[in-house]
């Protein structure tokens, strides 16, 4: 049993032992406070590796091509953002590049490093820092929004010209499935248990009941 506070309502509660694949909800507000994935390191690691390969494909191959009146044009994800930059909308271009490439890319990179490092606990304290950054990137990684945006753009343009999807498009489709799969199979609480403490102190013996709470460091 571990005592935790709900991140959404701060209620103190004891976590019961969870079955594999189970999850615990806060007794007061219903937020999911803990999950117990079957294989919290191996599965997300395999999925992250796959996603990293697909990510490279999605960013280097053309998303779609367009032919009209005997002329052909194609674009990649970065190409789309770069065109926006050239047209003078630089801030928008930066936001698009961040949400479509930089945030998902760094999320995958951080997760890959974290997952490799925590296979043999205790992982050094900088792994915790990366884990924090991966978490910060998560809301800004908008691959699925981008895919829907591309589809809407395609249908709008299809009125004017012939449009064909490229390899990049299928890669983005695969990423949209892989990214949430990583998040579901990963257990951040298990990862934190495997990271060495920043204070240098040792974590209290696991499973100890009514363990005293550690004191904050200055």
């Amino acid at each position, binding site marked *: 049993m571990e005592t935790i*506070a709900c991140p959404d309502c701060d*209620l103190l509660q004891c976590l019961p032992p969870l079955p594999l694949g189970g999850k615990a909800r806060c007794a007061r*507000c219903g937020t999911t406070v803990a999950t117990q994935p079957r294989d919290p390191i191996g599965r997300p690691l395999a999925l992250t590796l796959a996603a990293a390969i697909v990510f490279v494909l999605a960013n280097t191959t053309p998303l779609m091509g367009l032919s009209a009146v005997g002329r052909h044009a194609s674009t990649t994800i970065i190409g789309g953002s770069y065109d*926006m930059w050239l047209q003078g909308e630089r801030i*928008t271009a930066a936001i698009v590049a961040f949400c479509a490439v930089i945030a998902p890319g760094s999320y995958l990179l951080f997760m890959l490093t974290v997952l490799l490092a925590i296979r043999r606990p205790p992982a050094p304290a900088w792994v915790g820092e990366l884990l924090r950054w991966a978490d910060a990137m998560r809301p800004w990684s908008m691959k699925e*929004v981008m895919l829907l945006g591309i589809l809407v753009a395609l249908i*709008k*343009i299809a009125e004017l010209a012939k449009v064909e999807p490229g390899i990049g498009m299928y890669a983005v489709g695969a990423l949209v499935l892989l990214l949430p799969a990583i998040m579901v199979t990963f257990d951040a609480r298990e990862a934190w248990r495997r990271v060495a403490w920043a204070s240098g102190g040792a974590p209290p013996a696991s499973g100890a009941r009514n363990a005293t709470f550690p004191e*904050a*460091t200055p």
Partner: protein
Amino acid sequence: MTAAALSAAQAGLLSCETCGLLARPITRTEPGHCPRCGAVLEWRRHHSIQFTWALVIAAAICYIPANVLPVLVTNAFGKPDPDTIISGVIFLYTSGSWPLALIVLIASVMVPLGKLAALAYLLISVQRGSATSNKERTRLYRLVELIGRWSMLDVFVDTFTVALVQLQPLMWVDPGPGVLFFAAVVVLTMIAAETFDPRLIWDAGAAPGESR
């Protein structure tokens, strides 16, 4: 809520926002850092109400030019034709793809407006010390966090339309100034959702022991 419900703050404990560890503060005013991950410990997110209000108001101001200014300018046969977000939705509807028109309408018009209204409601109810329907308000907050990203849809639509339709000198599409304001609305409301501390919803009904 039972009488036994005790928040970590009432028990004099802090839960780390980064790694979830429960820790004892060094002093009440300066709790210190999390011993496990090293993050700064705070009872509640720093100036949560003020920051969130500032971001919500800024986003509400940007929402006006985002809808009035054109987001795309189509140049075909030498005639520029500006499109706002709403006229883009109408174009999708009249060209026969009403499901897409509905998706864009929800993502670009209803989600940003709903987010602003929801955050304003949460802020006002917390400031007034409301202690009712806490569970529903927490759920509303989680919904705002979850769907906020989808309003970025129109920014992506515009970006890829501009990138593809560059068949100068016959026909090409330029971005309009509205895109920047629209992207600003999405980014500001997403940050606002992150600065709002949902635990404040639950502090109101609790005994004044929060300061213990």
